[in-house]
C-alpha cells in the first residue's frame, strides 16, 4: 500500500511538472475587458483590445486608489479575430484571456458592411459568451470608442459599460441592454432583426445637433450619442440603437425611438416625458411614465396579409405642471391622459414605420405569428424576410395617470386667476 501511494504521488508530480494540465498563474494572464472591431483595408479587420492592468487596480488602502491607468488599448490588424488574438501575443508577454470581455464594440463602417463573417467564430470559442454586450460605435471607429471611454467614477471602463447596460431600463430607456446572445439568436432565427446599442464619442462641446425635432406634443428633441449637447465627463455616450438587416447595419434609432422600442419589448421600467400642456401649449408638464402591463400583441393573417394589433397600457405620475392648471381633476386629467396616449401612439407608429422601411423587425413582432403554425415546416415556408415590411400594424396606447406626486391639488399661482 505505501508503495502504491508513493507511486501514484510520483506519477501525479510528474504530470504536474510536465505542465500538460494547462494551468495558468494569475500573473501569466492578460485580462481583456473589451474588444473593438473595425474594418481595415483588404478585407482585414482591425481588432482593438482593452487590457486591464491588475497592478494599478490593486492599490492598497491609503495609497490613493492605485493611481496610474487601469487599462490600455492595443490595436491589431488581422484577417480574423482568432489570428488577432494570437498576434496580441507578439506584444504582450502574457496569455490573453477573453473570458472577462464585457463588451464587443463594432465600428460603424464594419457594421454597415456586414458582420456575419466576423461574428460567427465568436460563438464557437469558449471564452466568448452570449452574455457579452454588443455595441456599435456611431460615427467613429470602435478603437476610438475604446480609447475615449474614460469613466469618471468607475475605475474600469468595462464597469462603466456594464453599469450603463444594467441601468438602461430604469434611466429612461434611451438605450437598451443588447446581449450578444439575442443579437446572434436573431441573426439565425426566422423573423426579428438584430439590434445593438449605439456608443459614440461626444465632443463635449455642448453643440446642439438634434437628429429630429420634437414630435408634437412632446417637447424634447431626438438625439444620437455623438450629437447630444453635453459638457465634461466621459466622452463615451450610450444612446439609441443600431438596427440590422441580415447582419448588416441598415440604420439607427434615436433615443426617443429606442424608448418606444423598449416599451414595445417590455424592457422599459420608467422614464420622464415632457409634454405640452394641453390647454397652454407653451408650457410643459413632466410625467414619470411606467408600463401598466406588458404590451398585448394580437396577430392575425387577413387575406394573406399579416396584421398586428398592439395595445399598450402606460401609467403616469405627474411630477410638475408648469401652468398650474388643475390636472388632478377628473375632466382635465382625461385631457392630459389623451394627450400622452396620442403622443405615444404617434411616436410608436413613427418608429415602426421607420423600421419597416428598412425591413428590420426590431421588436420581433414576427414571433407572435408562431402560434398560427403547428409544424416547423409550415412555419418555415413563410417568407419571413419580407413579412415585416408588409405588416399592417395598429398601435393603441391607453394612459392612466395614477399619481400626482406629493401634491394632491394645484392651487393657482398668484395673479394668474
Amino acid at each position, binding site marked *: 500500500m505505501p508503495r502504491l501511494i508513493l507511486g501514484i504521488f510520483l506519477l501525479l508530480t510528474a*504530470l504536474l511538472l510536465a505542465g500538460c*494540465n494547462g*494551468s*495558468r*498563474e*494569475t500573473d501569466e494572464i492578460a*485580462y481583456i475587458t473589451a474588444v473593438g472591431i473595425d474594418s481595415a483595408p483588404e478585407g482585414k479587420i482591425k481588432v482593438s483590445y482593452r487590457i486591464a492592468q*491588475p*497592478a494599478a487596480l490593486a492599490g492598497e488602502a491609503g495609497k490613493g486608489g492605485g493611481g496610474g491607468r487601469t487599462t490600455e488599448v492595443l490595436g491589431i490588424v488581422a484577417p480574423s479575430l482568432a489570428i488577432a488574438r494570437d498576434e496580441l501575443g507578439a506584444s504582450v508577454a502574457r496569455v490573453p484571456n477573453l473570458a472577462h470581455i464585457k463588451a464587443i464594440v463594432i465600428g460603424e463602417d464594419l457594421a454597415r458592411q456586414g458582420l456575419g463573417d466576423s461574428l460567427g467564430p465568436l460563438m464557437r470559442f469558449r471564452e466568448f459568451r452570449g452574455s457579452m454586450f454588443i455595441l456599435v460605435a456611431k460615427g467613429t471607429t470602435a478603437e476610438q470608442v475604446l480609447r475615449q471611454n474614460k469613466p469618471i467614477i468607475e475605475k*474600469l471602463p468595462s464597469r462603466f459599460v456594464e453599469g450603463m447596460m444594467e441601468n438602461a431600463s430604469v434611466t429612461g430607456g434611451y438605450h437598451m441592454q443588447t446581449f450578444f446572445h439575442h443579437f446572434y439568436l436573431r441573426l439565425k432565427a426566422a423573423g426579428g432583426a438584430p439590434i445593438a446599442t449605439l456608443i459614440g464619442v461626444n465632443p463635449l462641446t455642448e453643440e446642439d445637433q438634434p437628429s429630429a425635432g420634437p414630435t408634437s406634443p412632446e417637447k424634447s428633441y431626438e438625439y444620437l450619442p455623438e450629437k447630444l449637447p453635453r459638457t465634461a465627463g466621459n466622452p463615451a455616450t450610450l444612446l439609441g440603437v443600431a438596427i440590422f438587416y441580415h447582419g448588416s447595419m441598415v440604420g439607427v434609432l434615436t433615443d426617443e425611438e429606442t424608448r418606444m422600442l423598449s416599451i414595445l419589448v417590455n424592457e422599459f421600467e420608467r422614464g420622464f416625458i415632457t409634454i405640452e400642456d394641453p390647454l397652454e401649449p407653451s408650457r410643459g408638464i413632466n410625467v414619470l411614465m411606467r408600463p401598466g402591463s406588458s404590451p398585448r400583441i394580437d396577430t392575425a393573417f387577413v387575406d394573406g396579409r399579416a396584421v398586428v394589433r398592439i395595445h399598450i397600457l402606460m401609467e403616469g405620475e405627474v411630477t410638475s405642471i408648469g401652468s398650474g392648471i388643475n390636472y388632478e381633476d377628473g375632466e382635465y386629467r382625461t385631457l392630459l391622459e389623451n394627450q400622452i396616449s396620442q403622443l405615444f401612439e404617434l411616436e410608436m407608429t413613427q418608429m415602426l414605420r421607420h423600421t419597416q422601411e428598412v425591413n428590420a423587425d426590431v421588436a420581433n413582432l414576427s414571433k407572435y405569428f408562431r402560434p398560427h403554425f403547428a409544424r416547423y415546416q409550415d412555419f418555415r415556408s413563410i417568407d419571413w424576410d419580407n413579412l415585416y415590411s408588409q405588416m399592417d400594424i395598429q398601435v393603441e396606447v391607453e394612459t392612466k395617470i395614477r399619481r400626482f406626486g406629493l401634491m394632491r391639488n394645484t392651487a393657482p399661482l398668484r395673479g394668474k386667476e
Partner: protein
Amino acid sequence: MEETLFSKIGVFLNRMLVFQPPKLPSRFVLEEKSRNDSPSQAEDPLKKALAELEALIRYGRRLQATLEKTRAALQGNRWDDERKVLRAEYTALEKQRQELNPLVLAYDVQTDNAGERPVSTSLTENRRLVEALYRLPVNKDLIVRDLTIGTAPPLKAMLIYLEGLTDGKIVGLMILQPLMLLSQGKRKATGDALIRQVMEELLPGNQVQPVGNFQDIQDRVNSGDTVVFLDGAAEALVVETKGWEHRGVGRPAIEQSIRGSQAAFAENLRVNTGLIRTMLRSSDLVTEMVPVGTRSRVNCAIMYLESVANADLVAEVKRRVSGFSTDYVDDSGFLEQFIEDKFILPLPQSLSTERPDRVASHLSEGRVAIITEGSPFALVVPVTFFTFFHSAEDFSLNPIAANFLRLLRVLGTFISIMLPALYIAITYFHQEALPTELALAIAGAREDVPFPAIFEVIMMELSFELIREAGVRIPGVLGSTIGIVGAIILGQAAVSAHIVSPIIVILVAITGLASSIIPEYRMALFARLSRFALLLLATFTGLVGLASGVLTIVVGLCSMKSYGVPYMAPIGPKVVPTLDVVVRGSAERRERRPDSLNTKDPTRQPYVSREWARKLPTGEEEK
C-alpha cells in the same frame, strides 16, 4: 457433473489463472433480524409455571435443610444451644411458606416487571431477583455482599450497592463493621421487630429506612445507596452511602459546552463507569469487564443498556475487544485501532468523548461504550458520519438555535475542506468565474509575489498548522498567546514582505477557523488532511480535480461501515430517518431511536410526549 479431461483442465486453468482472494470471514453487518430474536419472557406460560415450581422446590430444599439441622441438634444433644437459631429459622420458613401461598405466588410470577415485586423473606429469592434485575453476573457494577450479623443467634444478611456510586469507606465503616463486628447481643426473631432492631441498634448510618419493594430498591441503589437484605424480613434497609460527588471530577478540557453537564471523565475506570451511572440511572445498564493486554492486564469496561442495545452488536464488540492480543494497551485511542475495521480513509469509526453526558445519551439510543482503564476518553460505537457534527449541548438548546449552529458547522466543514482547493482551481483554470473586479484584484495583489499561488497556499497552510500544533505543545497560557501573536505577525509580515498576497492570508485564516468548528478532533483532522489532498488535485485539473476528489471521498464514506452500521446512515443507505441527522427536531419529536442501530426497543417516547399539554391545569375543574 462428471469429471472429464476437459473439466479437469478447466479446473486446473481456473486455479492457475483466477485470483483467489484469501478466505476471510465476511464483514460484520448489523442485521435487522435480531430484533425479533428476543421473545419476551412474559409470553411464555410454561416459563412462568417453571418459575413457580422452582420457587417451591427451593422452599422445599430449605425446609429439608432445616429439618436435617434440627435432627442433628436433637441427636447431638445440643438442643438448648441451637434452640434459638432453629426457632428463628422456622419463623423465617413460616413466612416464606406464606409467600408461597399459590395465589400470592401466582401473582408475583405473573408480574412481568420484576421491579414491582415486594421484597421476599427469603434471602435466596431476593438474591435471584437482584441478579435478574442487574444482569448479574455479566454486569460488574453491582456488588452483592453476603454476610452474617454476629448477633445471637447469628442472622444471615446480604447487601448490594453499585460500584462507583457509593463511598466504600462509608459502606465499610457504617454498615459492614457494625453489622459484623460490633453486633453482639440477642436479636429478635420476627420480621418487623427484627428490622426495627437492626435499624435502631445496629446500623449507625445517618439515613436508614426500610423499603418494601424492588422498585424503590432499584431507585435507591441506582442513586448510590446501599441496600441491606435480612433473612426472614419482608423489608430491606436502605443506607445512605452516596459517594461519587466527592471524587475529583474535572471539567471537560476539549469538548467544552455552554450548556449541559460540565463533568469530564477521569483516569480511574470505576469513577468513569460511576459517572455514566450517575447520568443514566437504569438497572439494566450493564458494565462488563474485559481485561486486555498480555503483559499488563488493563481492564476495559463495555457498557450498554441491556433492554435497548442490539445483542449482536454487543456480542461483536465483546468479540473484538477480547479477540486481539498485544502486550500493553495504554489508551482508548490505541485500543480503538485494534478493534475497528480497516479502511482506507482515515476517518474515526467511533466517537471518542470525555463527556459522561454524551456517553449516556448515546447509550440510551442503543449504542455501546468502551472505556479503557487509565484513559479519560470513552469510545462510543457504532457511529455515523453525522454524529461528529453534533455537539453535547445541541439538545439543550431551542431547535431553531441549535440548527443554526449545526448548519454553521456543516458550512464550516465545507469551507475547511474545499476553500483553498476552490481558490486554486479558480485562479489556475477558471479565471472567468470571478467577477471582473475580484479577478483583477487577486491578480493585482499577486503581481508582486514571486511564487506560484499553490506554493503560497501550501506555505501558509503549513505555517498555520505549525502555529496550531505549537499552540497545543507550548505549555500553559503561553500556548494560545503565541498562537495568536504568531498568526498575526506572521501573516502581516509575509504580506508586507511580498511573500504571500493578502487574500491568501484571509483564505488560510478562514479555513483554519472553519476547521476548528468541527466538534470532533479526529474528524477535524480528516478535514485538514483531505484539504491538502483536494488542494493537490485542484492544482492538477482545477474544478475537475476537485470534483473527482470530492466524489472519491463521498463514495468512500458511503462504502464505509462503523461496527456493522453504514457510515452515512440514515441517508446512504436510506433508512427511516430520525430528526437528528443534519438538523434536529424538537425534543418532543424524538419518538424513535436511530433505525440503523436495530435496537431491541425502537421507540424512545410516545407520539404524545407532552401529556400535560392535553390535561387541564391544576385547579381548573372539568366542566
